[in-house]
């Protein structure tokens, strides 16, 4: 059985998820967790993330070459966060349902600004604007370029490798978004009120990561007891 550790490494303004092999201690821990999971005793880790750090507005590059006011564009929701387990039980890597998600280009903004998916999932990038967009990424995890396509059209990208993929538009430099690709299912994206829930976590010791706007902002150690239940874990990101 192949085990993986999911950890985040921030490097040169772009983040990448690396998956080195587990050590002995980690393997024993996940083996125990596997037994607990099959016996049905699981817990949910839930809580709320409050983003207090100042989030600057996303502005276009000043372009003195324009003949008039630039078109107004929407602002991305940069308070959306992702909570995930740094390491996951071994069984979590075996189940890989092929999912599908969507990241829309609307009013020169990617909606949602942050998308968390399982590896192997496909993301559709529909264009709902009246102008061309050109979605691309130069991330090490996945490089792609969808070319220019017009309103009403959509192009898919399948994300097979875990990691963080920074997405841009080649025509509108102020457009950017994140796709976080996980090799397990123990993650959740926060709701508008900041709430999240990672369900069905087997007993064991974990590190819970709070990620926001391109970086890991906080991490906590959590122990899920043998009897299962719900664990409340709040984060404040300053």
């Amino acid at each position, binding site marked *: 059985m192949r085990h993986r550790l999911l950890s985040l490494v921030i490097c040169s303004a772009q983040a990448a998820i690396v998956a080195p092999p587990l050590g002995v201690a980690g393997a024993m821990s996940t083996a125990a967790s596997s037994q607990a999971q099959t016996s049905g005793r699981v817990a949910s880790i839930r809580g709320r993330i409050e983003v207090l750090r100042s989030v600057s*507005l996303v*502005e276009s590059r000043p*372009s*003195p*070459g324009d*003949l008039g006011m630039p078109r107004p564009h929407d602002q991305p929701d940069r308070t959306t966060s992702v909570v995930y387990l740094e390491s996951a039980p071994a069984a979590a890597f075996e189940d890989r349902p092929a999912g599908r998600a969507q990241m829309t280009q609307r009013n020169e903004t990617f909606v949602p600004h942050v998308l968390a998916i399982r590896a192997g999932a496909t993301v559709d990038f529909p264009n709902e604007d*009246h102008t061309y967009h050109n979605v691309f990424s130069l991330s090490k995890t996945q*490089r792609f370029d969808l*070319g220019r396509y017009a309103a009403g059209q959509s192009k898919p990208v399948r994300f097979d490798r875990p990691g963080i993929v920074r997405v841009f538009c080649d025509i509108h430099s102020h457009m950017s978004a994140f796709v976080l690709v996980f090799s397990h299912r123990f993650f959740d994206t926060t709701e508008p009120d900041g709430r999240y829930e990672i369900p069905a976590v087997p007993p064991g010791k974990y590190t819970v990561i709070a990620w926001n706007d391109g970086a890991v902002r906080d991490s906590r150690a959590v122990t899920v007891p043998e009897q299962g239940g719900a664990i409340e874990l709040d984060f404040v990101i300053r």
Partner: protein
Amino acid sequence: MNADGGAYNRIFMTFRSWSALALVALLPCPAGGQALPSEPISLVGGRVTIGGEASLSLSTNPDEAGWFNYTDYKRNALRMVRLGATADVRLGSRLSVLGELRTEGRALCDRRFVCDLQRLELYALYIRVRPWADRAFDIQAGRIPPVFGAFARRNYSGTDNPLIGYPLAYQYLTSLRSDAVPATADDLLRMRARGWRPSFSIGSTADTPGSPIMTAFRWDTGVQMHWGSEPLEVSGSVTTGTLSEPHVQDNNGGKQIAARVAWHPAVGLVLGVSGAHGPYVAASVTRVLPPDVPRADFSQQAFGFDAEYSRGYWLVRSEGIISEWRLPAVRAPLIRHALRASSISVEGQYKIRPGLFGAGRYDYLGFSNLPGSTETRQWDAPVTRLEAGGGYYVMRNLIAKVTYQHDWRDGGRARSLSVWSGQLQFWF
């Protein structure tokens, strides 16, 4: 220049050279990437936005015999260091002030790197007003972008030239000057292919380069209006200079009127037509003309078209300009008719894979015939340019480009040029 001044300049230039070198050296370094901004700096709750650009271009051939790529006597578009900062200050929802500070200099890399950045220049500074909130109508006043054509505005963002060289119409120096004019047709014909330093008997005797059809390196001063958005845009301007010779201060008491209509019939397709007319010859020249020379409209008049189509991984552009200059007819053989220059360029870009693209451009610049005392020839030497190359995005806002350019010219000491160029360009 005295000895002290020379020493001061040497020290200052060395300082500036090393400053530029240090900045450029930072660019390709991944560790340095963390310190460099990746998006514009937003201040005062988004009311002030600051962007920047740095580029370094180097070439294998100094081009000092043909002067094909020179933008004036000193600066070669293929051997240039450029540092620039742009700012957008929003004073209200319908009022902004935009500006750009820029410095350029030669980049030489023979035995040691030399970079003599010129003083900081204010390339753009204007106020933008939208009088009615619900109408796409804007007024811009100050040192404003040109409404004529497409390349000069597009290139200003710093990242929308897929090659390193410029289209001939926007950079190549013809043998015409606004501050000095030929007395005869023979005087002008003698200056064929000497646009880097033409000299004439009437007007200034200073060493000044000739004029391109339309310069992409300076902006004019005046007022500009823009109406509409897709599918139809109309722009017009009144400025102090002309396409060839933009000015901050008026030098002949006349104003240029320019206009452009752009039509977007489908997403990805833009068709534009432009026109401009304005007095070209400086008042310092007309003042010294012999009294029997008729004072006519010594103007530059131009008509242009531009087209752009993009789809998928392709981007194709074309632009054509016909420009006419009317000069004084002083002595025989007279320059009786307007001097015409015609240019056409076709440019294509294709994305080969994520972060990697190839591009090419064909350019031609021709001139009308001028009868001299012994023969009739084109008044300047026609030029053809082919440039092809590619670019790689090291980061989203750091591009490395390599191009090969070949120029042919029917005249001058050097009749052709083959040159490889490389460019690093960073922006935020």
